């Protein structure tokens, strides 16, 4: 069977559309062509007060223990740490990481932050933008018959019909 030919073309088209439909997810930062744009920005937080994620993702009840495992993106050089009041955030740099280093000529870790400096940030509106040689090949199959046997009862019987054979006495074969 040609499996690939069995897959409906509409399903393939739908798959491609779904995977490529990143209308919300942004992989590359849109170009900013304003005279005031400064490439010396260190992170998205400089332009976007709540840059990355919807608060609905924060489902862990104990972020202190689980947040790092579930929530913080591996590619972020700095993270927002929730304050005890649950409203304010503090920016903290993760040592050893370069934010968007693959595109660092535009946006990079060019500023040094004090990890301990609390900054109040309001989450909300942005500020800007097989095996053997086969002698005979017979396809396996079954046939079905129904009959009553000697015990006077009806059984459901189906049989895998086989090829004929010959019985040979072993003593005779040895001769």
């Amino acid at each position: 069977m040609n499996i690939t030919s069995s897959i409906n073309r509409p399903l393939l088209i739908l798959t491609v559309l779904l995977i490529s439909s990143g209308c919300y997810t942004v992989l590359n930062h849109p170009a900013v062509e304003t005279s005031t744009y400064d490439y010396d920005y260190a992170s998205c937080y400089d332009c976007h007060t709540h840059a990355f994620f919807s608060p609905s993702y924060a489902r862990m009840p104990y972020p202190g223990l689980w947040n790092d495992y579930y929530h913080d993106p591996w590619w972020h050089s700095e993270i927002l740490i929730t304050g005890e009041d649950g409203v304010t955030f503090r920016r903290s740099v993760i040592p050893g990481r370069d934010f968007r280093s693959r595109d660092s000529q535009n946006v990079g870790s060019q500023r040094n932050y004090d990890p301990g400096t609390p900054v109040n940030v309001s989450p909300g509106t942005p500020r800007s933008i097989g095996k053997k040689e086969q002698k005979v090949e017979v396809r396996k199959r079954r046939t079905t018959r129904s009959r009553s046997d000697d015990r006077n009862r009806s059984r459901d019987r189906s049989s895998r019909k086989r090829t004929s054979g010959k019985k040979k006495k072993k003593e005779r074969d040895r001769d």
Partner: protein
Amino acid sequence: MIYKMFTAAVLLILLAGTGANAQSLGVLQLNRMGIITTGDAGARALALGGAYTSVSDDAYGLVYNPAGLAQIRKKEFTLGIDHVDNDLALSYSGYKSELPFSTTGIGHVSFVYPYPTYRGSLVLGFGAFRMGSADREHFKTSIRPDLGGILENRLSQTGSIYQYRFGAGIDVSPRASLGANLVVWDQSLEYTEEFYFESTGDLSTYTFTDNTSADLDAVSLEFGLMYKVIEGLNFGFMASSPVWVSIDGDAVEDYIGNYSDGVAWETDPTYLLVEDEYTLPMKFRLGISYQLFNFLVSADAEYCDYSQTKYNGTRLFNELYPEEDILNEVVDLHAGVEFTVPDQPIKLRAGYTYMPARFTGFEEIAFIEEEILADGFEYYIVSEWGQFDVLQERQYFTFGAGALIDRVIMVDLAVSVGQMEAESEYLNESEDITRVTLSGSYRF
């Protein structure tokens, strides 16, 4: 049943097949391969009873809902080990037999990569998952006066079902994610089946042995949706395409015996090809979960009308009673709860799974029957099929725990205890299954 001495040479007859001929073997083969009773993957998902469609916030989204992959923020490598104890008890006409066996092996390996994004999420993943098994051993015996002797059936079969899953999840809004999986199935099936008959009249014996080796290849697609209704309340949906299955293999059959005078006889080995195709129907899976304080509660329902299963292009049906379905329309139910221990990196879990019988019957026993031809003889494997009553639908109770080590390694353990029992007029089959899964995930 006719058993007679026969030593004349006969020509090998190539049998012409018909659609009806194929049906019984198709049903039996489908039953034994285990591809419509694939299970869970990963200790956390297993401990939650498989209620994971609306959770899927780790690599197991590759199995339960690819849209859930979009929740992952770190690269993740996972590895799992499975151990299964299976106690299969058969009682045919009062003659009981039990052949417990166990298997241990790698359950899964997977890797997930979140692509760096400025907004939203795009996560790619790949994993190899052992999703089921055709491992089975059974022995049936009975005195059959109607056949004039003693029957014995033995089966020894192995064959793990692996799925290679390529998946992606992407955020399409702050609260909605979509995902897709390409699933490539693979199974190597090996079995030896032996039918023995001993005549109580003249003490002649007949032994038929079938050694079969077959490879299963299949492909399917899955599409997922994850929607965060409100804070903590998730809705998940996954639709699976039909599974296009192709089976290729070969078999060799031997037929030997002893005449009543003690002289042994044998036939030439018969070589056969296995070339079959199945199309398994679509599945739909719906899940909901709610994170309330320290508790995560989740539930899933999966629907599939297995009666739509096709074998070599024809819908599988009961040959003797074509008006009856031989496969059922089923809804599987899954439920689970997870408790996060306050101020401790530990989670405790429990779950329940309910999986109604896919088949309406099973093979009670099989034997050889011969028919004399003008120039030889033909022999058949006669399979007696019985419609069964389900005394205990397949269900599992699951338990587990997970611990976070140094914020980057998650170790999960799950234990699943399940059973089923079905009975036809002559055969009672019960199965107790205990599965232990250990998973480790490393996020970096």
